[in-house]
């Protein structure tokens, strides 16, 4: 028992050590005598694989315990303690974090292996793996942290790695700008997180600022403070998980290498916000108003991103918007207090979205960094393994039964309906159709029809096994992960939800089985329509259309980036230069300038008295002496 708990600290430490070793090796050798890539590749995979192994140990240990005792806490040391604030560098494994742990380490390991092949020609091989390991370590701290502050360490750590990896190809200014954007937008969210934590601490943190103590004290929260905390924390979640209004960084984040997009910007980091809301379910569940805000923001983000996704032509941008859209679903789920459904969608989404990204990576790799889907086509026979695995991913993403996405998405939509959020359910179904449409638009344009760029097509070849094996493993997950949480109507017993039960505070809605079946049929029908329309338009090959009207606005993403630029970025910069050009020298410094000016003027005034003639000075002297005598004679009497 104690023994297993001690592993918890080791789980994040292993990749972090890997990052340190790789980083040091790379830092000291890259300019003089670069080390072989194989060394870095091998070193990089050790940490994640060992962590995965330990995660399995922890998972099975928890499984062996009775459900209400499934908590492992390992407090490594006191991080800092000031007054009532006592923060342990503590790690907590409970069903929720164990589930996250399991798939983060699994997918993390797979993507590391994939990257060994994908990054083979990159000259900064070591740097890449250093960042990747660092990321995994930070992500594991985020997942395992026993309280909000430790979680925040991972939270910011993954943000940093995200920045470093987005701006990885840093010679191109645009990539660095995308990285900056990601970091800064995330920081806006982090402000919400920090403020939320602070308010929470002053409300109920005095007797322990970790999840278990907070959960025990959560009933002491007044509605005003509780809702404030929920909303502030949610601001943090919108930053990290790319929700309205802070979603803008994620599409730009595709500037990073594709494995990064798969790992960080699809499977793990961006779901941290959902995880956080689920972590704080003991607060959110008490305040349905805050939950509704979360749910509505989520579903509107899902809708908006789906609209953008329908018009993109960069394969990674399509996937990016689809990620934003799916994250919206997850928030809709946690917003209507269906935390387990949200987390289950996080889980399945990690598989199929990582799969799709890695598949897209294979395509890009095969076509020598071509990302425009209008320049692809007919790759089905050239890249059979990629095609079949991606097809599974696409089916899962679209929510086609019996692939994993169907079950998780359906659970969310049903929960929305069962808790009386009909509007959310309706938009959710609509988005499901749009998702099916844009996913298959991508599949058809990339793999079907005739090749649009003949030369690239001829040179295309299936990537090496180190890249395709992870694809196959992920495809298995994407196809069958749904079985883990079969609802009652399919004869299952919601295993994942039951597993998560001890970690979460849920209010289950009640609805009849017929409603459930109807809802399911409705979404299947809409998905079928989406796929059919995509097939009609693109299945036989199509030419790149010229966007007009709504499509054009959609392609330019409703000009949100431009609006943000005009409303926030430019005024910010302008304000900076106003301060440095005008306020600082002319206004703030004016007090100082004024006093020195006064001294000068006074000097000039007194200068007139300095005539330079001895006799005049004598006169002054006499006047002065006379006045002094006068004064003395007056005061003495």
């Amino acid at each position: 028992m104690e023994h297993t708990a001690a592993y918890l600290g080791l789980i994040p430490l292993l990749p972090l050590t890997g990052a340190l070793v790789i980083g040091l090796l790379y830092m000291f050798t890259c300019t003089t005598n670069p080390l072989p890539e194989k060394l870095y590749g091998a070193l990089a995979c050790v940490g994640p694989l060992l962590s995965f192994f330990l995660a399995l140990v922890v998972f099975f240990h928890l499984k062996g315990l009775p459900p209400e005792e499934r908590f492992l806490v390992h407090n490594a040391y006191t991080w800092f303690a000031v007054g009532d604030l006592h923060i342990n560098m503590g790690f907590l494994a409970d069903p929720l974090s164990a589930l996250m742990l399991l798939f983060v380490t699994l997918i993390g390991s797979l993507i590391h292996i994939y990257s060994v092949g994908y990054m083979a020609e990159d000259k900064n091989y070591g740097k890449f793996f250093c960042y990747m390991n660092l990321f995994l370590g930070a992500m594991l701290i985020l997942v395992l942290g026993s309280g909000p502050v430790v979680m925040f360490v991972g939270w910011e750590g993954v943000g940093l790695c995200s920045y470093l990896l987005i701006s990885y190809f840093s010679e191109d200014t645009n990539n660095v700008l995308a990285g900056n954007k990601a970091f800064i937008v995330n920081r806006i969210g982090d402000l919400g997180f920090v403020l939320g934590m602070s308010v929470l601490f002053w409300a109920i943190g005095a007797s322990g600022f970790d999840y278990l103590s907070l959960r025990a004290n959560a009933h002491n929260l007044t509605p005003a403070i509780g809702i404030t905390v929920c909303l502030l924390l949610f601001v943090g979640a919108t930053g990290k998980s790319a929700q309205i209004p802070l979603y803008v960084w994620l599409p730009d984040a595709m500037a990073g290498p594709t494995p990064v997009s798969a790992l960080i910007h699809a499977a793990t980091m961006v779901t941290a916000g959902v995880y956080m809301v689920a972590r704080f379910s003991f607060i959110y569940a008490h305040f349905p108003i805050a939950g509704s805000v979360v749910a509505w923001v989520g579903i509107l983000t899902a809708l908006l991103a789906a609209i953008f996704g329908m018009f993109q032509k960069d394969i990674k941008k399509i996937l990016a918007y689809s990620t934003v859209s799916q994250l919206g679903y997850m928030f809709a789920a946690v917003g209507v207090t269906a935390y387990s459904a949200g987390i289950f969608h996080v889980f399945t989404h990690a598989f199929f979205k990582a799969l799709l990204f890695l598949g897209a990576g294979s395509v890009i790799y095969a076509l020598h960094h071509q990302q425009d889907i209008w320049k692809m086509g007919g790759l089905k026979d050239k890249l059979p393994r990629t095609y079949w695995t991606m097809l599974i991913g696409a089916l899962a993403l679209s929510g086609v039964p019996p692939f994993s996405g169907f079950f998780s998405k359906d659970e969310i939509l049903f929960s929305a309906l069962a808790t009386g959020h009909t509007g959310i359910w309706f938009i959710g179904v609509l988005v499901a159709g749009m998702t099916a449409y844009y996913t298959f638009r991508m599949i058809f344009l990339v793999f079907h029809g005739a090749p649009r760029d003949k030369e690239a097509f001829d040179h295309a070849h299936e990537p090496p096994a180190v890249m395709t094996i992870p694809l196959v493993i992920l495809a298995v997950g994407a196809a069958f992960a749904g079985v883990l949480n079969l609802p009652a109507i399919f004869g299952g017993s919601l295993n994942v939800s039951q597993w998560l039960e001890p970690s979460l505070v849920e209010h289950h809605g009640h609805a009849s089985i017929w409603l459930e079946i109807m809802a399911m049929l409705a979404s299947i029908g809409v998905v079928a329509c989406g796929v059919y329309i995509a097939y009609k338009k693109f299945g036989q090959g199509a030419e790149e259309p010229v966007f007009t009207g709504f499509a054009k606005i959609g392609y330019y993403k409703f000009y949100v980036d431009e609006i943000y630029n005009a409303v926030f970025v430019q005024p910010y910069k302008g304000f900076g230069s106003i301060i440095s050009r005008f306020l600082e020298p002319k206004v703030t410094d004016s007090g100082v300038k004024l006093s020195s000016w006064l001294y000068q003027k006074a000097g000039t005034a007194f200068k007139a008295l300095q005539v330079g003639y001895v006799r005049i000075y004598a006169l002054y002297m006499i006047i002065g002496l006379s006045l002094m005598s006068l004064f003395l004679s007056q005061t003495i009497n």
Partner: protein
Amino acid sequence: MIQHYLILSIILFCLGILGVISRRNVFTVFMSIELMLNAANLAFITFSRLHLSMDGQVLALLVMAVAAAEAALALAVVILLHKHKGNLDTNVFSLLKG
């Protein structure tokens, strides 16, 4: 009775001041200063007589000695000034003008 001496002393002193302020020749200024010193001496002696104390006389002697020394120094300075500028008009020496 005693105030006549003092009035004379004040008159002499004022004449000296007027001389210092209004005359431009260095020598005249110098002589005016001597006049003021002597006015002061007169006052000293008067008070010495009034209080029947020797202090005033001692001071008057001291002033005379200082005046003699000063005269020697001042004349040397005047000669230098003349060498420097070629005349003895005080308005020529106005380096301190602001």
